[in-house]
């Protein structure tokens, strides 16, 4: 990974660009393969287990996108901490990449969850379901950070404030992860990493979900690398423009 380190060197920026696009392409291929396998290879669930058994196949993207969102929120947290405590420009780029990826994956998860909820529970949203709500809040936090950042000039005040929110918001991640283990109100319990209680998935279903998780991971890593490169290029553009203006 030493090719990614020497920030500021033109060749390295474009090298990262190629890596990013390869990851993006591989992830996209895997995501489509997941969709195909989920529909044509994975077995149907028992009719008696679900109100709407056909809608259950939503999970082949719902669960991996939620997994990818958690990774993005983790990156957001690490980036926020690196900026806030170390004043690292690399950290700020991680923060920006994490918010954008978190927002995209969060919206996909919330959307697919709402549609499944409408099919299975008869309601798209339940205000008393802890995981649903905490995940929705994480997505709203990412939306707040993306829109907020666009509304402010870049500077230490903007970075400090939004990094602080990134740090506060991360409290929701373990809460969301543990929610169905602690308060299983409506949301299904864990099916993959279920611990001692054991997962309820058939092995072929689990395999498709694993392929999905891996593909989504590659996909958002590619996206985040591109996003980091965009932030870096935006900063450089502003610097060059300032030099044209006769400023700093």
């Amino acid at each position, binding site marked *: 990974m030493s090719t990614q380190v020497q920030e500021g060197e033109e060749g390295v920026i474009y090298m990262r660009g190629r890596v990013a696009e390869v990851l993006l392409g591989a992830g996209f291929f895997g995501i489509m393969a997941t969709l195909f396998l989920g529909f044509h290879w994975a077995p149907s669930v028992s009719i008696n287990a679900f109100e709407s058994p056909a809608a259950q196949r939503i999970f082949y993207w719902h669960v991996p996108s939620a997994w990818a969102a958690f990774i993005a929120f983790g990156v957001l947290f690490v980036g926020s901490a690196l900026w806030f405590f170390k004043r690292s420009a690399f950290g700020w780029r991680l923060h920006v990449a994490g918010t954008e990826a978190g927002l995209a994956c969060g919206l996909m998860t919330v959307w697919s969850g709402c549609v499944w909820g409408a099919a299975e529970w008869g309601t798209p949203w339940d205000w*008393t379901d802890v995981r649903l709500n905490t995940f*929705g809040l994480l997505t709203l936090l990412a939306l707040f950070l993306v829109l*907020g950042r666009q*509304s402010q000039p870049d500077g230490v005040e*903007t970075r400090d*404030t939004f990094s602080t929110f990134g740090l506060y918001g991360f409290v929701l991640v373990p809460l969301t992860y543990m929610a169905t283990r602690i308060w299983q109100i409506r949301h299904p319990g864990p099916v993959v990493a279920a611990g001692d209680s054991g997962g309820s998935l058939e092995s072929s279903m689990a395999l498709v979900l694993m392929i999905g998780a891996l593909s989504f991971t590659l996909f958002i890593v590619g996206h985040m690398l591109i996003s980091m490169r965009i932030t870096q290029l935006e900063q450089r553009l502003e610097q060059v423009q300032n030099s044209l203006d006769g400023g700093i």
Partner: protein
Amino acid sequence: MNGRFDGSSQSGDIMAESLLRLEDIEVRRGKGVVLSQFNLEVHAGDVLVLHGENGSGKSTVIETCARLLSLENGRVFHHGKRVLDSEGRRTSPPEAFGLTLQKNGLVGDETVENHLKTVCFLSEKSFDLTEILASYGLDHRRHDRIAQLSGGQMRKVAVLAGLLPALLTNEPRLILLDEPATGLDEKALESLVNHIGQLSTAGHGFIVASHNSKILECATRIHNLKTEKSNVPNTHEPWKSTATQHSTSLLSARVGFRYLTSTQAAIARNGLTALLVLGTLMGFVDPSSIENRSLLVGFVLAAPFAAGLAGDPVLYIMREGRAVDWWRAQVQRLPSSDVHSLTIGFVFTAIGCIVFLDGVDWRITALGTLMHWVTMNCVRFIELSTLRLVRPNAVFLRLLLPILILPWALVTDFAAGL
């Protein structure tokens, strides 16, 4: 900007008390480092005038001394006590200090007298303001609201508020004035120069950012943020304070109460929000047709919850003219609307109980009151967290408020079981 100045104009065997010390300060604003490795010390009797180009960092020095900016590095001491450092520690100064910001930091709905009295109370003093108001040509305006004054008159009030902590005591106090001469007429400027001279002779210390030649004549030290030179000011009789001791408890809550009583902002924002929610629910819901108690309790608690989401009206009032920054420099807890928020929460929950539950249930009323107060303070906390932004009004704060829905949904479930 780099500057290393450890001395003061004081010389001889007896060193005057250190009122302010900046150690190795680094401050960033926007994309630039405004102060770097900056050191400064002000002793009793010093009048340090910051005299540099626009954008050189004069206001940044004043705001750093007033604990308003975050430090990348360094420490700020008032009267030898550390009040701010780069690790995030921010503690109360041991003594009140005077502050006039470049923007006045005044609340338009306050009267001149009330604002200045509040400044006196922050120093735990009481003082007859008549003479001092007359010297600035403000005696006939003392009962007027600040919003009714001209720009120059507002500036006079802000300058007076900055000088008052020193005018109230014979003990040395620190006074920070950012461009105090801007907008003042000749008479007021003469009074200001006179007061600076009298107060510094009495042992108070000043940092003044100014380009005005008359202010420069009062300086004992002139500092351009790179170099410093000494100056011999005109002599003045020392100021003798006639203020008396007057301690005031719960000042922040009392000031918040006064702001809201004079503006009715709590009723206009939170009260009307609750009324609209309650009215809408009453229009669409027939309680007699609903068996589900959780739903009915939810309707009762909806009004205080929505009123809380409208935010703290005191903070809203203080956003004008950087009043919130002036208060942040002076106190650890900003004026609040605790009394009004508890009253509004109580009244609207009780009305909701009568409408939806056929009578007041005191436990649900207490929960609704608490819900309104907690919700309002959460919104206040989020709003305060964004005040450092260049454009705090442009962020989408309401996106974060759904975080309050889940806890209150659980409280509503609990309340329905009572």
